[in-house]
């Protein structure tokens, strides 16, 4: 299990100090895909880079299965995709890049060659195995960056925006692989700004805002928690002069009301208040991760 406990990080210059992470704790268990979400500058990439050992935290602990950050046993269990556009040696072919990475991650030459062949085939890059790296498309480079991250078949994987800038086919291939790896028992921590990707892939969601984890729950639980409070009510006739003590919106025809309640029991009070308007239908609105994310990370406008 990846265990991150109370990490803090501030970047200091001569003139000021910017706190990036205030107190971040999270866990990634085997077989779990944890989506780490946050707005730009919320500290997602710093968190990933700390877990990789590229950045040292000011305080806190990071370990994988009890091995502390930086130890060879820790590193051996970790693969990471930090930048989908980089990471390849330009003078080597895709096959040689993979073979080299497998060897430096501890494989013998023959095992590295086999693994390189397997990964190229798996990601649909076999045809390009000997092509100069400069001739690869952006999608292919991203797939190669992913292949390098999983080169030594690590039990834990960090993916920083893995599908960023990919076309639909390449993104689907990567998503499929991520799902298969999770089904195979690998623990994956991914960051993304694409909520639909997080919703499709993750089994757990952690949201970072202002350097803190504001929510860390199984995805289903999070969606259920928000879904039970929002309703859509359709009326047979337009509503006029509606006043409610809840947050609500009415569409342009004044016949579709969307209302957010604090708790499920308030639905009775709401129906009382709406009477005698003729109700055609009532439905619970299924929450989506994007909406939940917006609610949890919304910022008050700052005043100069």
């Amino acid at each position, binding site marked *: 299990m990846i265990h991150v406990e109370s990490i803090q990080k501030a970047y200091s210059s001569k003139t000021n100090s910017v706190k990036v992470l205030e107190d971040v704790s999270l866990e990634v268990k085997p077989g779990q895909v944890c989506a780490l979400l946050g707005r730009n500058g919320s500290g997602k990439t710093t968190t990933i880079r700390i877990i990789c050992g590229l950045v040292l935290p000011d305080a806190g602990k990071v370990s994988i299965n009890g091995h502390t950050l930086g130890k060879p046993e820790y590193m051996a269990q970790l693969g990471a995709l930090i930048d989908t556009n980089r*990471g390849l040696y330009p003078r080597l072919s895709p096959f040689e890049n993979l073979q080299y990475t497998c060897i430096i991650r501890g494989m013998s030459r023959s095992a590295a060659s086999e693994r390189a062949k397997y990964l190229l085939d798996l990601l649909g890059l076999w045809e390009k195995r000997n092509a100069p790296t400069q001739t690869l498309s952006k999608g292919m480079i991203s797939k190669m960056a992913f292949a390098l991250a999983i080169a030594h078949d690590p039990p834990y994987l960090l993916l920083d925006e893995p599908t960023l800038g990919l076309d639909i086919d390449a993104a689907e291939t990567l998503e499929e692989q991520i799902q298969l790896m999770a089904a195979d028992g690998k623990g994956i921590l991914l960051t993304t700004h694409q909520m639909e990707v997080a919703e499709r892939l993750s089994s757990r969601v952690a949201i970072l805002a202002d350097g803190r984890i504001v929510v860390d729950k199984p995805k289903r639980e999070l969606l259920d928690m928000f879904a039970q409070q929002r309703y859509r009510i359709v009326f047979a006739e337009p509503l006029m002069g509606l006043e409610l003590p809840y947050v609500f919106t009415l569409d342009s025809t004044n016949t579709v009301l969307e209302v957010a309640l604090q708790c499920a029991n308030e639905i009775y009070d709401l129906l009382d208040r709406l009477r005698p308007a003729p109700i055609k239908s009532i439905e619970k609105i299924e929450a989506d991760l994007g909406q939940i994310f917006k609610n949890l990370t919304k910022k008050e406008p700052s005043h100069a």
Partner: protein
Amino acid sequence: MLRLRQLFYAELIRSWLELVRYPAQFVLGLLLLGLIFYLLFGFARLAGALDSSGLQTTKLITGYLLGIFALATIGGPAQQVSREVKSGSLENMVLSGQGLTAFFVVQVLARSWYSLLQLSLLFVALVFVYKSAFVLNWLLLPAFFLFSIAALGLGLVAGAVVLLYKEVGNIFTLVQLLVFPAVMVEVPQLQWFPLTQGASITRKLLSGVAINPVDWAILALGAVALYSLGVYLFQTADLVARKKGLLGHE
């Protein structure tokens, strides 16, 4: 240790592939190095620094080749740091769990065959063209080893600076300009400098002169001290870069 051997092997293969794929760099480099020596030889003759016995020519060739080797070794870590950062592969090096210092030392050692091959070919060509006479001695091996260790130490210092300050190409060129004459010519005031002393001992051995044990001891101490300083500064720069979040950024 096993992992470092694997690493050495991987780097060896990688540098071989790069040579095979881009042979012009090797061949043109060889030609240019020959041309530069030809010019230096001409200047030395014009200045009246060469005698008829050929001893000075021998010293000039030795100094020149050692100077070129020192520049290649000193530039190795800094050049590799820049290349790895540019290609975004420095992250992979960190994730390999070897430690960046060990990784770069192994990388420079594995890639030194390139300079050694180039300089050996040049050595044979220059000896043939200028009809120089050399005394080959087994003691040349420890002398060259200590000289290389000292150069690597200085290379790690330069690598540490690049790791932290990135754009230092111009200053680095000036440092190389300082080191090259210090190795090439025997400057008495710089005898304490391990590279100067290593070159001086190598030159003497090639001329068949016996070396005082004290000189060996001073060279060994100086080379180990310079290498240790390089390792210490590189490790410190690595730590500072990780603290400041600079690692892997161009």
